[in-house]
């Protein structure tokens, strides 16, 4: 089997493609670095010179506002030069292959690619192809992984709840199609969360999900009883019309997070959502805007976490 392409010979992170296979020490070191960048983001001058002269390409083959924007801000606060490419609208429609696109950007002096693609494995594919000095960050590939989202989620949990080894956490919603859920599960199990649950209708839970180290619930009130953290997932529009669900209204009745259901969790439980939210589908506005929601802090911390990942990858010269 090929070695883990995201680590170099010494176990140092070279690309960030998935959280699967990263140990707790490495995850904590990323979170510790992010902690220092939180301080930078609160300053008068929210910028450090670390990545001065580096060219970072946001390579988005799939639309995204929040992820692309936070990567862009993160890169700019590290003093890198950032170029945003929404490829759906350019080369791909003219028939250029993915690797031709990547080669052309590398010829323009790219040091790092941030890749979002509808195909699982796209970022791995690019990482295996590029020259050794180029770094690749997976910003979401198909149903596979969204590692920086997983990291910013565990960073947020660590900030509010400190010790992972005492927590009960429920991930609620469409686990089946969610790369966010997969990255969260890998991160939280690596960090030693003893009680990790997934909650959703049978049609939206992948078969064999228990093997990832989670407990499965189909009843939401049972699933979030006494948890410290409720992590909601976005229900994608196409699922609401598909055969897997009766209707958005029906889904909300059973799995929408309302104040009444949230009362089953611990009184100090936090509520998270990766965005963008469907209010009235997976989450009630009273919860989304309520005192237990940490959804906007997640966005803010996302910048610090992405700054940490980029600077950990970019430093130390070429491999």
């Amino acid at each position, binding site marked *: 089997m090929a070695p883990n392409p995201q680590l170099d010979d010494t176990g140092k992170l070279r690309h960030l493609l998935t959280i699967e296979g990263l140990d707790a020490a490495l995850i904590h070191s990323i979170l510790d670095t992010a902690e220092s960048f939180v301080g930078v983001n609160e300053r*008068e*001058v929210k910028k*450090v010179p670390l990545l001065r002269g580096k060219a970072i390409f946001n390579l988005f083959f799939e639309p995204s506002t929040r992820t692309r924007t936070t990567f862009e801000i993160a890169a700019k606060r590290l003093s890198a030069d950032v170029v945003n490419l929404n490829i759906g609208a350019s080369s791909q429609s003219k028939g250029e292959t993915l690797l031709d696109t990547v080669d052309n950007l590398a010829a323009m002096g790219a040091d790092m690619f941030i890749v979002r693609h509808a195909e699982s494995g796209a970022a791995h594919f690019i990482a295996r192809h590029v020259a050794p000095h180029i770094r690749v960050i997976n910003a979401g590939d198909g149903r596979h992984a969204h590692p920086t989202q997983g990291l910013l989620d565990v960073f947020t949990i660590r900030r509010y709840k400190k010790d992972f080894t005492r927590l009960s956490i429920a991930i609620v919603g469409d686990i089946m199609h969610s790369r966010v859920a997969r990255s969260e599960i890998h991160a939280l199990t690596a960090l030693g969360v003893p009680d990790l649950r997934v909650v959703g209708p049978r049609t939206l839970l992948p078969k064999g999900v228990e093997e990832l180290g989670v407990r499965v619930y189909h009843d939401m009130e049972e699933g979030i009883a006494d948890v410290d953290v409720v992590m909601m997932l976005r229900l994608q529009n196409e699922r609401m019309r598909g055969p897997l669900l009766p209707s958005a209204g029906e889904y909300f009745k059973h799995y929408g997070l309302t104040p009444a259901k949230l009362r089953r969790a611990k009184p100090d439980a936090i509520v998270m959502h990766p965005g963008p939210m469907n209010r009235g589908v997976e989450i009630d506005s009273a919860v989304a805007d309520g005192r237990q929601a940490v959804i906007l802090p997640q966005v803010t911390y996302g910048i610090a976490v992405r700054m940490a990942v980029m600077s950990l990858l970019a430093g130390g010269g070429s491999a």
Partner: protein
Amino acid sequence: MSASTGLPDAEALIRRLAEAIADHLTDRTALVGIHTGGAWVAQKLNALLGPEIPLGTLDIAFYRDDFSRMGLHPQVRPSHIDFPVEGAHIILVDDVLYTGRTVRAAMNELFDFGRPAAIELAVLIDRGGRELPIAPQYVGAVIPLPPHQHIQLDRDSQGRLSLSLLDKRH
């Protein structure tokens, strides 16, 4: 002098530094220690000179000029500057002054918090070997060393500071 190492006593050097600084305090003076050793020294100076003097710490990992060669320092800590830097008289504190690159990085970082009226430099040990035009205003001791030797500041469980000599050839 400590008989075992031939190095001066760190705590005595800090008292000497405090005496030298005491005459130059203004109502806008603040102490800023550079992680890790400089932060320890600044803390002790603060206790000697008066706890009402604002105290801050800098971790210059994000400003180092060897980042692209060495990568990010594995134990980077947040910088804490909880007072207005704008118009302040900053005394930057470090344990050992060598090439001057750390001090340059620290000054760059300070300016991202505001524009100080003046920055001075206090160091426990000046070991020579400057690669930049940087000179300290307050010095505990001058101990010229060859490149393969390093002076390290250590802190024991009681918080006492001491100096030791490391030889990179061994």
